[in-house]
């Protein structure tokens, strides 16, 4: 059974994260004791700790557990997307094919066949889905239907597949953190960015940034998030990644902007469908797509930035 190497630096950051969550929980409990209304925050932090624990256990056990978790995540996201958007009754079998692309894609990443992964959903599944839909033969709303299904696959399966691909980065490129360190970095940065954008938006928010899509988002929140994430990236990148200070600052700011767009893109879809949350799976957060929407934009960007800096080519046999 293949394991990931958990370096001292990753352990250090993990303890740091758990310590932070522990303190946060303590502060919230104290505020609750002081009769402050923090029930919403308590639910949110509790769900978040639950997610962190599941991730830690899965990624520290072995490669199969880690991949099973990401596959499940991707499945739940795609299911939320298909439940959200209207689908034609005749497309049931097409949707089933779309679902089956998930295990296939993650198997391809599991065996480190990156070149096939890059093309699998954008090209082969795209062609297969078209083929299956044509054989059913319902042409009413054909293009709209096929575009919806492909959009769901690109976001929930292909983009989230990059989380798994980050795990395939060979250890030698990041001796201080290994692939787990890189994954930890991107998850931490993405979640922290969401939080900081929301936080600084609540604190200083005045000028709306895209009122038609997301009326609560402000320029102040966006800029605060970018600055905060850049600083955080410069602080934790030296522990988890081989980036230089300049590289980590650049990476942090790009990821912050990408995370923002991931967030508002999913907001636009939700607004189009007239829902607030994609599901109620995670108490206090909404659905998988609500929580991981920023990751759809940040994970591929981070992977390619890292691959560019280190000239990495992932091939079978590594």
């Amino acid at each position, binding site marked *: 059974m293949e394991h990931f190497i958990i370096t001292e630096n990753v352990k250090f950051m993990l303890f740091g994260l758990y310590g932070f969550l522990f303190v946060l929980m303590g502060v919230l409990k104290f505020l609750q004791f002081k009769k402050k209304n923090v029930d919403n925050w308590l639910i949110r932090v509790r769900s978040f700790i639950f997610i962190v624990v599941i991730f830690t256990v899965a990624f520290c056990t072995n490669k199969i557990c880690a991949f099973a978790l990401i596959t499940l995540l991707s499945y739940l996201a795609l299911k939320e997307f298909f439940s959200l958007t209207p689908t034609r009754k005749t497309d049931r079998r097409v949707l089933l094919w779309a679902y089956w692309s998930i295990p296939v894609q993650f198997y391809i990443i599991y065996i480190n066949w990156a070149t096939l992964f890059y093309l699998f959903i954008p090209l082969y599944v795209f062609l297969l889905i078209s083929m299956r839909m044509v054989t059913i033969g319902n042409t009413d709303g054909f293009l709209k239907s096929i575009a919806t299904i492909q959009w769901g696959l690109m976001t929930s399966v292909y983009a989230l597949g990059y989380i798994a691909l980050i795990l395939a980065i060979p250890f030698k490129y990041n001796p201080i953190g290994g692939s787990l360190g890189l994954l930890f970095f991107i998850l931490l940065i993405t979640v922290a960015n969401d939080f900081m954008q929301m936080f600084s938006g609540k604190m200083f928010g005045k000028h709306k940034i895209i009122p038609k899509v997301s009326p609560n988002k402000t320029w102040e929140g966006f800029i605060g998030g970018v600055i905060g994430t850049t600083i955080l990236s410069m602080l934790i990148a030296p522990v988890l990644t081989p980036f230089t200070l300049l590289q980590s600052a650049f990476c942090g700011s790009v990821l912050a902007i990408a995370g923002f767009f991931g967030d508002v893109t999913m907001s636009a879809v939700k607004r189009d469908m*007239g829902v607030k949350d994609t599901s109620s799976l995670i108490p206090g957060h909404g659905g998988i797509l609500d929580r991981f929407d920023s990751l759809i934009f940040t994970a591929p960007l981070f992977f390619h930035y890292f691959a560019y800096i280190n000239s990495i080519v992932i091939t079978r046999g590594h």
Partner: protein
Amino acid sequence: MIFFNFLKYMLFLFIIKPFIYLVLGVNVSGAGNLPKVDKSPSIIVANHNSHIDTLLLMSLFNCSQILKIHPVAAADYFCNTKFKRFVFTKLLGIIPISRKVRKATEEELFKDINEKLRAGETIIIYPEGTRGESNELSKFKSGVAHIARMNPDIPVIPCYINGPDKILPKGEILWVPFIADVYVSEPVYYDNTSTKEFTEKIRSIVEFLKLEHKKKEEL
């Protein structure tokens, strides 16, 4: 009996509930209206489009509560072979009822149901009488009203289920995962009008819940 209850418990805990919550997914609105099944009996009424409906409604309750829930099901469909009869009555706890109108007194026709209700257990019943076309609420049969009239102190809880008609429509064998929605209404009691009016009342509540869902979709 204890053995079968244990099997039913395990079946829901390890197979049906994980399937319903993880593979499919449920959004419940009005969860506070769900009855305390282990304390008192109630009559759960819902629209019916798919076999999933029953599993979905039962999964809303704790595994120990599920033992006290009995779906009322058509004898000619679920008990036409000995094996099916065994599986559905023992493992899912269904109460078989004949859909053919016979010459029998009311008390005789609803004997099994009344027995369960009087023993403090809960029933699930689909007044449409069969799995209907998706997105259409067909005419309600008056059986529920008769049961409610015979047990006026037992609450009737109308529900609207959306989604199972996409997951597994009538006549299909392939399952496609979707998140289902369940709307639970406040309980109503038999109000000494007529069974016809009471049936209409329940139907209008389910219709109202359906409109509520439609409104959410078209926002």
